[in-house]
């Protein structure tokens, strides 16, 4: 038996236990301050609400019954066990959770799973496999576009979508002429990738990796 697999199960079990404890603790907190917007006072829902949703992930259809609070990121990681999308900040600031939904990159942490009825979702697991890497994955390896690797699945999903956005003629803050097609420059790539933070600072190698894939596809 692989001792690491055993260790992983133990760690996962510990994390799940911790999460349950946290949930109980939060449930016993006093009522929070109401974010008033001039509306009548909300009547709090006392207990969790479950809803169903069906979507496709990496080509496989899934029907799920989920607590309405479940984010797409948590549905992917905790329910479908696709742990490629990472939980970094959980507030849309770091991009580690980036996945591609119906061809567009989004922060899966800032989207409710139940809002993805009928959607086609692609995670890093759906782009390539260890035996058959996606060209962007291969380019990140070749150019050392990562160090610790935690932000990498999000970086790669984002990078694949960025090239599509440029191909589709979507402008960016770095686009000099709004009425012309955006060009594929380092400035464009840096601006378009700004929603993916890398604490190791692999940015210049990431730009090199994306540039190579763009050149290959051009």
């Amino acid at each position, binding site marked *: 038996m692989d001792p690491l697999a055993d260790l992983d199960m133990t760690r996962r079990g510990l994390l799940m236990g911790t999460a349950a404890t946290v949930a109980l603790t939060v449930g016993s907190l006093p009522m929070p*301050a109401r974010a008033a*917007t001039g*509306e009548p006072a909300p009547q709090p*829902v006392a207990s969790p*609400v479950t809803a169903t949703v069906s979507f496709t992930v990496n080509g496989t259809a899934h029907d799920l019954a989920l*607590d309405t609070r479940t984010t797409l990121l948590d549905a992917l990681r905790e329910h479908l066990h696709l742990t490629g999308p990472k939980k970094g900040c959980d507030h849309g600031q770091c991009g580690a959770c980036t996945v591609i939904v119906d061809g567009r990159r989004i*922060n899966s942490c800032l989207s409710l799973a139940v809002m993805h009825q009928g959607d086609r979702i692609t995670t890093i697991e759906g782009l390539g496999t260890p035996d058959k890497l996606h060209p962007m994955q291969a380019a990140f390896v070749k150019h050392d576009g990562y160090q610790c690797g935690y932000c990498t699945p999000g970086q790669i999903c984002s990078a694949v*979508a960025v090239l599509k956005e440029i191909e589709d003629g*979507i402008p960016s803050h770095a686009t000099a002429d709004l009425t012309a097609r955006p060009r594929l420059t380092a400035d464009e790539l840096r601006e378009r990738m700004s929603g993916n933070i890398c604490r190791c600072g692999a940015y210049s190698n990431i730009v090199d990796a994306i540039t190579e894939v763009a050149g290959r596809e051009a």
Partner: protein
Amino acid sequence: MRPFSYERARTPADAAAAAARTPGAKFIAGGTNLLDLMKLEIETPPHLIDVNGLSLDTVAPTPDGGLRIGALVRNTDLAADDRVRRDYGLLSRALLAGASGQLRNKATTAGNLLQRTRCPYFYDTAQPCNKRQPGSGCAAIGGFSRQLAVIGGSEACIATHPSDMAVAMRALDATVETVRPDGATRGIPIAEFHRLPGDTPHIETALEPGELITAVTLPKPLGGRHIYRKVRDRASYAFALVAVGAILQPDGSGRVALGGVAHKPWRVEAAEAELPRGAKAAAAALLAGAKPTPENAFKLPLVERTLAAVLAQAKG
């Protein structure tokens, strides 16, 4: 996050009626701001009404030569629309200066208008905040206020409106179209849509409970040079310290609106008469009556200098 029930609305009128039925219910579209605030329990709606299925996602010409932008048009699509890029460049530029590619793919036109302040004291539930908890006080006044408002604030609140898009909408004289729970529709001029804080900073817009934004309309194009210049702490993906949105004509006349300085996109039509006299005169008129804190007084000269750069770019 607090538990909530969830439904998918079928028509705008149904959505508004559903909101009126459930006190505290919220519409959700892109969700990029609302879910962030729900995770922190700053927003605690007991019920969410998903409006993404309402078919309000097209940009169409209006009979008077303008554009009607559906409430659900994503920021990415609005910025990339050929007509917007050609005739309302200021709007494209402002959208592209905001958030990240991922967020712009989800964020909607209506949601962008309704996003809430990023004042650090609004976000910190351990601190008093009149916007988050009316009557609790304002920790920002006398606190860390570098990012906060320099004009239009009150003793109750010095938060800023975070949107770039709304600054462009204000300069373009957009109109916000809505439907109310009784099915009645109305158009709210953008100048009257966002409110100053006064002593009710928790009431941020002219919307009534349950009222749903269906579209934002733009008058016919103005021509001229469209420039959006945003000054921030990093080159991309940060909120504005100061932003200047301007439409400038060859004769030196024009329009200008500011972001990052007030509780709403800041435009003073009378100040625009000063534009031909240069940035110093125009900025002074725009910011007359400003009450900065010691930490954010730098924004006053920053507005003047940013406006000077914009005016120079328009001539170049």
